[in-house]
């Protein structure tokens, strides 16, 4: 043997591989992982948020030698993990209100600083409702003060816990219980939406990144990188919701992958307000391929479908692709020989 071989059966895409060296293993491939959110929680079958929270917090625990305090906004994640008298959390965890997770986390960080416990780090987390709508004021304040907190938003694109109501993060044309698929403009409106990663970047904080449950290695690396900064950091993770999206429970990771491979959910990172890298599309898919398996978009398909709206959504994806430079020479494009 002269040079070490880099190629494995599954490259770096799978969770692990028996042939990988110690340094190449993902945290989730280790039997010794924290399991920060452990079994017995009451999340639905195939919950993307339960998966995303474990991925992120286990990586943070590994990066800080287990010294994490988590603060949770109200939402699915809080409700399904802590019905009295049981908790699924295997780390110090606080819940206060729907809108104040960022403020409480700021307080915890201040208290730790006052006690000189600089090695203990703080993570605040919430769903898209608690983050982009209800908790937005405290979050913006946390950014503006550059408090030493990593805020993680698990974005499932609506208020799922209370029965699937539209949030500021609900995508255009999606059916929710407050945006029915009726009328000329069925589902959620085609507005600017509330693009929180970009808003976070506008605060000029040290680190902002997006990720999804479809790329574990990328997600873990971003959490570890976030823990290497002090000050306010923001991580936005796309977590498909079988209940609210009307998708099959086994499709959760597949749908997250289609969201990123279509360009609708750009995966990138930014430091001090500037985009530093983006994850390239491997095998581009049309947005229709991503939307069709989801019942919340069923009204766009079929005999009475809305090809015009599909086209508008496709142009949103195309805009992301060019804005974040998501295609490179290794990407198999829509017209390529391998477009799924």
């Amino acid at each position: 043997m002269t040079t070490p071989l880099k190629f494995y059966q599954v490259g770096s895409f799978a969770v692990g591989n028996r042939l990988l060296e110690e340094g190449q293993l993902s945290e989730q491939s280790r039997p010794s992982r924290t399991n920060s959110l452990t079994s017995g929680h009451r999340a639905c079958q195939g919950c993307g948020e339960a998966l995303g929270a474990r991925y992120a917090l286990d990586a943070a625990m590994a990066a800080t030698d287990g010294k994490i305090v988590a603060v949770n906004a109200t939402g699915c994640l809080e409700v399904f993990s802590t019905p009295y008298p049981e908790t699924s959390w295997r780390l110090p965890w606080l819940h206060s209100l729907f809108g104040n997770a960022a403020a409480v986390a700021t307080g915890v960080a201040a208290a730790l600083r006052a006690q000189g416990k600089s090695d203990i780090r703080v993570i605040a987390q919430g769903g898209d409702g608690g983050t982009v709508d209800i908790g937005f004021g405290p979050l913006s304040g946390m950014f503006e003060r550059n408090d030493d907190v990593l805020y993680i938003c698990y974005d499932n694109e609506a208020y799922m816990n209370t029965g699937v109501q539209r949030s500021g993060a609900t995508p255009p044309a999606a059916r929710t219980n407050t945006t029915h698929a009726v009328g000329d403009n069925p589902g959620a409106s085609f507005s600017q939406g509330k693009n929180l990663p970009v808003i976070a970047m506008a605060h000029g904080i040290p680190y902002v990144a997006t990720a999804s449950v479809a790329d574990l290695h990328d997600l873990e690396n971003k959490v570890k990188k976030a823990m290497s900064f002090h000050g306010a950091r923001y991580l936005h993770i796309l977590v498909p919701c079988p209940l609210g999206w009307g998708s099959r429970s086994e499709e959760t990771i597949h749908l997250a992958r289609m969201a990123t491979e279509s360009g609708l959910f750009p995966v990138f990172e930014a430091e001090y307000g500037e985009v530093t890298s983006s994850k390239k599309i491997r095998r581009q898919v049309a947005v229709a391929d991503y939307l069709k398996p989801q019942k919340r978009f069923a009204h766009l398909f079929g005999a009475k479908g809305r090809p015009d709206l599909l086209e508008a959504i496709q142009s949103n994806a195309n805009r992301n692709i060019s804005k974040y430079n998501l295609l490179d020479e290794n990407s198999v494009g829509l017209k390529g020989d391998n477009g799924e």
Partner: protein
Amino acid sequence: MVSKPFAITLNIGSSLANHTGSWRNERPVYVNRMPPCNNACPAGEDVQGWLYEGEAGNYEQAWRNLTRDNPLPAIMGRICYHPCQTACNRADLDEAVGINSVERFLGDEAIKQGWQFTVTAAPTGKKILIIGSGPSGLSAAYQLALKGHSVTIRESSSAPGGMMRYGIPAYRLPREVLDAEVARIVNMGVAIECNSKVENAEAAFAEGFDAVFLAIGAHLGKRAFIPAGDTARILDAVSVLHMTADGQPPMLGRRVVVYGGGNTALDAARTARRLGAYEAIVVYRRTQEKMPAHEVELKEAIDEGIVMRWLSTISRVDEGTVTIEKMELDEKGNPQPTGQFESLDADSVVLALGQEVDLSVIDGISQVSVDDGVIEVDELLMTGRRGLFAGGDAVPGERTATNAIGHGKHAARAIDSWLQGETFVHAARPEPASYERLNTWYYSDAPKTVRSKLDAARRASNFAEVVQGLDAETAVFEARRCLSCGNCFSCDNCFGVCPDNAVIKLENGKYEINLDYCKGCGICANECPCGAIDMEPERS
């Protein structure tokens, strides 16, 4: 009052008390499916299984797994037409895994390291005669010796190997490789008696053998009636190859015409070139698409300057010339004469029109029947004479060395069972591991490592080996391209993607489902790269 830590007023429990497994209506089950490579291999090699060891660099274990089914990997890594690669699911992704190259690497490594077979079974006291030392004979001898039987091979030629020595030219199979793999079987205690033609199989039973396996091959070149002048020089390809292998090559002259379209025709033409002919023309009555010869063989032959004359038959041979007639295909695709003739200069004509079985060995054994020139056998390869088995080219089926090795293995199992008064029953094949069951997202793209070839011009002049092997580094790379279709290869995906931590990673690299918590969402099955997890309905 129960004492609690500061500021804690409520008793805390863990959600582990909540067994969410009760929600489930489907459960994930780990399965082992039949990969297409294994399914396609006539010798029944567990290709995915031995590549799995090869991927980790456990070459000896890989070789030991491989040789459970085929004792001749260095040989077959050179001459097999690798139906495994034709079937390989990876071909739909980028290119088939170079299984044959890795097999050859393992075979060569075994010769280099001197790995031997060990017989652990106690001697059974049963004596078995194998007639013929070709691939089916050697394969059967190996399998029977492993089971503790006493095996004798009788070979009519002066050296063992059958068609591997006398049909396949040295540039495709170097003799030291053949000798090494035969020697390893002899080291197990198998006796090979050369120059020992068995005249009649029945006599062997009288001699005290408990079972006899006919592995006599098909060594008689088929003749066709071709009008020829008295001085025309016409030979058959089997004899040409046999004589060349024995070191007494026939005189073919400077211009040679070979008649036929199989691999033997190409071997004869390529051999003629190496024996000094500057022109070797293969005359075949159909088209390239209909040619039975393997595509790779044809390409290598053309690279060496062999000229192909498609849609032609030989109508007459005279001294120095051959008359050929142009043919055309009718609507059924059969060649029909056109009445247009052409003359070719030729010093000799080599007929490669197929081979026939020398059936004299079963003369007078009334229970054995023959159909269309081959020996009839049942599905356990036994002839009508109890205890007399037959395999390889002498029985119906595809005439390849790999198929012969498979016959040898199956006959050995059947003989072993028969000697114990039992009937061998094939294990049921698992469901196929289809491409559709793969989640190809997880496999990264990698091209096939192509074996370097000797320069065509250099190759035509000698019998040096044409196709070179892989080195250790490229072999392990090639092995790692295996998708492990239908069989877990410990990628940790199920363990990682479960939202309920309901997958347990075991010490041995395998996994178990924790049914106390599995909600049956199916993500593990959906994200399994190789399709080794099924979702099965729960019975209420």
